[in-house]
């Protein structure tokens, strides 16, 4: 016979203001099976919890219903209190009479009645609860880091330095990401490559890091502590073990005029190439779409010139399965493309370029070796216009968010331009200057006051060409929206940062959520900013939202510390809310008939086949079996099972039917 205790919380005035808690407690005392029912001002306070602990002992309770706030809030608190008093924590349920009753209804009899109804359904449920025990699962202490930009590099190094193995997967032939493309970084103007490349070398040499460049994650299965990742290692068409990185093949390649991705299309590269001189790994790959041999079946010049005989035209993509315990997603961002700005003529006028292209023009390792020459004729621009918020904060363009980094890098660009061309004029069109951050506002002021950059508050409506000049038409809203026309030699657009291509597909294969801009979603915007909704998968860097380098690095370190915390445990404890297949005495053994409908419905591949055999090995029947390590407890199989042979612990058929029945008793 059940002995249930009901504990009604006033939550100060939060519940008691609209629900007659005293009456609720008295009415609930009359529910069959309830032996103790009491109301108290703050049930979650220490005296309140003590009330529960004492009652469990004194009244020998076999189940507890706490009528208070949402179980999402305090279920762990009260279950712990029950466990402390010796009651299995899974015999405690919460009736949500605050968020779903007292806060949403006025003070009335109906509200009090609703509270009573909610409690009585939970009493009906708890009578049928069973003692459950947490499941222990082992942890594979290897982390998978997806993306080798600064965030991925930092996360990989931090995890590796804490003594755990890391597999770093990068889509491009080299790690480094967007940071490797930058010339100087704000607000200190230190050279980007000078601070990044030592980190890249560290990754390559770290004994705990395995680097897969030119590779992509195809799929991820399993669960926290026990993921299996399938990595597609794209064919580089060279034997990495033999290749010395001498570069003879790149000199031999006759197809040299391919737009260089690293230089944002401003420079060229051969079909067999290393993206940039400091690349890690510093070994070339063959771009099969550009290579003459792969297009026409003839050429193989590079093969004849390779002193190490490392060229492998017949190499195939390789699929590698690895076991990992945690995943850090650091796939970064992209910038909007040519079709986005017809009014600015981007893609039409050669001298209208993006911020990233401007970085390459400024960079000492760029296509102009650091000399500022405009792409159309190679002359030095004497007048240059920068347009901040090109695409960002523009609902008409579908991007209502602020890309965060543009204000700062535009100030940096204008400043660097003035350093390179002291007699030139720099104009910045802006909406607002958002320079929150350490030393950031000072930096923008320096651009304005010391380097005399002209800041014009207003948006640019149109750019067109006239007599070889780019006419930038805008308005100065601080001068009564007076029209402004600037005859510029070059225009730099601070284009909006958007989610990287393939972000949506990756999110779907990893089972993590993403927002409507395809940026990956954190589990909680404030309190769990680096976790995803899928346990064991963490976020770092601009794949979550546009971020600058310091933010990306700190988030990467945060994600790495989450991974290290996970790996510091021997075993993980999981909630026992999992499905089970019934087993019964011979000659039935199990009511499961082995139709395996559940197997095809299970999103986690948690259903296995189990053969029931006699002692001498004769097969009696094949039934389903749930792997409790893989089962996440969604219960889709339970609703589907035709013979009702599967049940979900914590939400069993008996429990939920009792709830429905009780509701209309």
């Amino acid at each position, binding site marked *: 016979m059940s002995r249930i205790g009901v504990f009604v919380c006033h939550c100060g005035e939060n519940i008691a203001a609209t629900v007659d808690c005293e009456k609720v407690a008295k009415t609930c005392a009359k529910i069959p099976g309830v032996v103790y029912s009491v109301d108290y001002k703050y049930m979650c306070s220490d005296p309140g919890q003590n009330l529960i602990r004492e009652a469990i002992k004194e009244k020998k309770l076999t189940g507890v219903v706490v009528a208070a706030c949402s179980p999402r809030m305090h279920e762990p608190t009260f279950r712990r209190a029950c466990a402390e008093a010796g009651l299995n924590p899974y015999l405690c349920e919460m009736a949500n009479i605050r968020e779903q009753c007292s*806060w949403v209804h006025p003070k009335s009899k109906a509200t009090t009645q609703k509270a009573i109804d909610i409690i009585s359904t939970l009493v009906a449920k708890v009578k049928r609860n069973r003692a459950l025990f947490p499941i222990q699962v082992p942890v594979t202490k290897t982390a998978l880091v997806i993306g080798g930009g600064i965030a991925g590099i930092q996360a990989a190094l931090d995890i590796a330095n804490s003594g755990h193995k890391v597999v770093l997967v990068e889509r491009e032939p080299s790690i480094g990401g967007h940071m490797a493309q930058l010339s100087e970084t704000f607000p200190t103007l230190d050279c980007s490559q000078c601070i990044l490349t030592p980190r890249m070398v560290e990754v390559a040499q770290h004994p705990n890091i395995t680097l897969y460049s030119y590779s992509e994650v195809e799929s991820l299965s399993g669960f926290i502590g026990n993921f299996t990742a399938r990595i597609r290692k794209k064919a580089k068409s060279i034997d990495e073990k033999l290749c010395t990185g001498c570069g003879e093949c790149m000199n031999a390649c006759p197809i040299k005029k391919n737009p260089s991705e690293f230089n944002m299309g401003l420079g060229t590269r051969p079909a067999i190439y290393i993206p940039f001189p400091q690349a890690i790994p510093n070994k070339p790959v063959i771009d099969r779409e550009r290579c003459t041999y792969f297009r026409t079946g003839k050429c193989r010049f590079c093969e004849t010139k390779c002193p190490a005989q490392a060229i492998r035209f017949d190499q195939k993509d390789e699929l590698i399965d690895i076991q990992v315990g945690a995943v850090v997603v650091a796939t970064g961002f992209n910038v909007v493309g040519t079709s986005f700005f017809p009014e600015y003529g981007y893609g039409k006028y050669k001298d209208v370029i993006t911020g990233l292209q401007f970085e390459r023009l400024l960079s000492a390792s760029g296509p102009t070796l650091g000399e500022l020459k405009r792409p159309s004729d190679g002359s030095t621009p004497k007048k240059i216009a920068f347009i901040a918020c090109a695409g960002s904060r523009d609902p008409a363009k579908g991007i209502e968010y602020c890309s965060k980094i543009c204000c700062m890098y535009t100030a940096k660009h204008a400043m660097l331009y003035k350093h390179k061309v002291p007699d030139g004029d720099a104009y910045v069109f802006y909406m607002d200057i958002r320079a929150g951050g350490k030393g950031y506002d000072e930096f923008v002021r320096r651009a304005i006051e010391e380097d005399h950059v002209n800041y014009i508050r207003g948006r640019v409506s149109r750019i067109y060409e006239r007599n070889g000049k780019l006419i930038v038409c805008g308005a100065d809203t601080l001068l009564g929206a007076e029209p402004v026309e600037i005859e510029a030699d070059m225009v730099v657009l601070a284009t909006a940062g958007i989610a990287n291509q393939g972000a949506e597909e990756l999110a*779907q294969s990893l089972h993590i959520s993403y927002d409507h801009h395809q940026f990956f979603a954190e589990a909680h915007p404030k309190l769990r900013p680096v976790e995803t909704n899928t346990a064991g998968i963490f976020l770092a860097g601009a794949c979550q939202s546009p971020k600058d380098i310091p933010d990306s690095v700190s988030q990467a370190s945060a994600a790495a510390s989450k991974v290290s915390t996970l790996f510091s445990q021997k075993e993980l404890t999981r909630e026992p809310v999992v499905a089970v297949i019934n087993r019964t005495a011979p000659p039935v053994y199990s009511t499961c008939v082995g139709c395996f409908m559940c197997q095809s419905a299970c*999103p986690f591949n948690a259903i296995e086949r189990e053969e029931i055999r006699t002692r001498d090995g004769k097969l009696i029947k094949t039934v389903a079996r749930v792997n409790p390590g893989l089962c996440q407890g*969604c219960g889709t199989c339970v*609703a589907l099972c035709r013979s009702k042979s599967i049940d979900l612990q914590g939400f069993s058929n008996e429990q939920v039917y009792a709830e429905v029945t009780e*509701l209309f008793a």
Partner: protein
Amino acid sequence: MENESFEPKIVAFVCNWCTYAGADLTGTSRIKYATNVRIIRFPCTGRIDYNLILKAFERGADGVIVSGCHPNDCHYTSGNFHARRRWIVFRGLLEYMGIDPRRIIFSWVSAAEGAKWADVVNRAVTEVRQLGPAKEFNEMRKSQAFEFRSV
């Protein structure tokens, strides 16, 4: 109309991750809605056995709300798709049985849509009120040669 004073009894089967959290948000935002609904929490809409809906009608519910995560947002990847697919089949069965399918309100309410939850509930109450008390199941029971066993 005769139904105007009628207070329908509605049960809501919701998933833990989206709609239950969304209903919590309605509370934290102090948005008011009708008291007629009783929420029963499930891990996922995929867990909701549609026999439960029949059970609710058998026991005297006037309307049922089924609500979970938006498509593609399921905490368990695909539970809500299973629920949706089953609902399409189940709706045909309901119509065949003579139960008005308008008594079942299927919706997606995310954890961020507190206001939408209040809206779903209020709309459900208004619609079911117009339909009047659910007598279909009991009439069907009477017309059958056998008695439904009451649990």
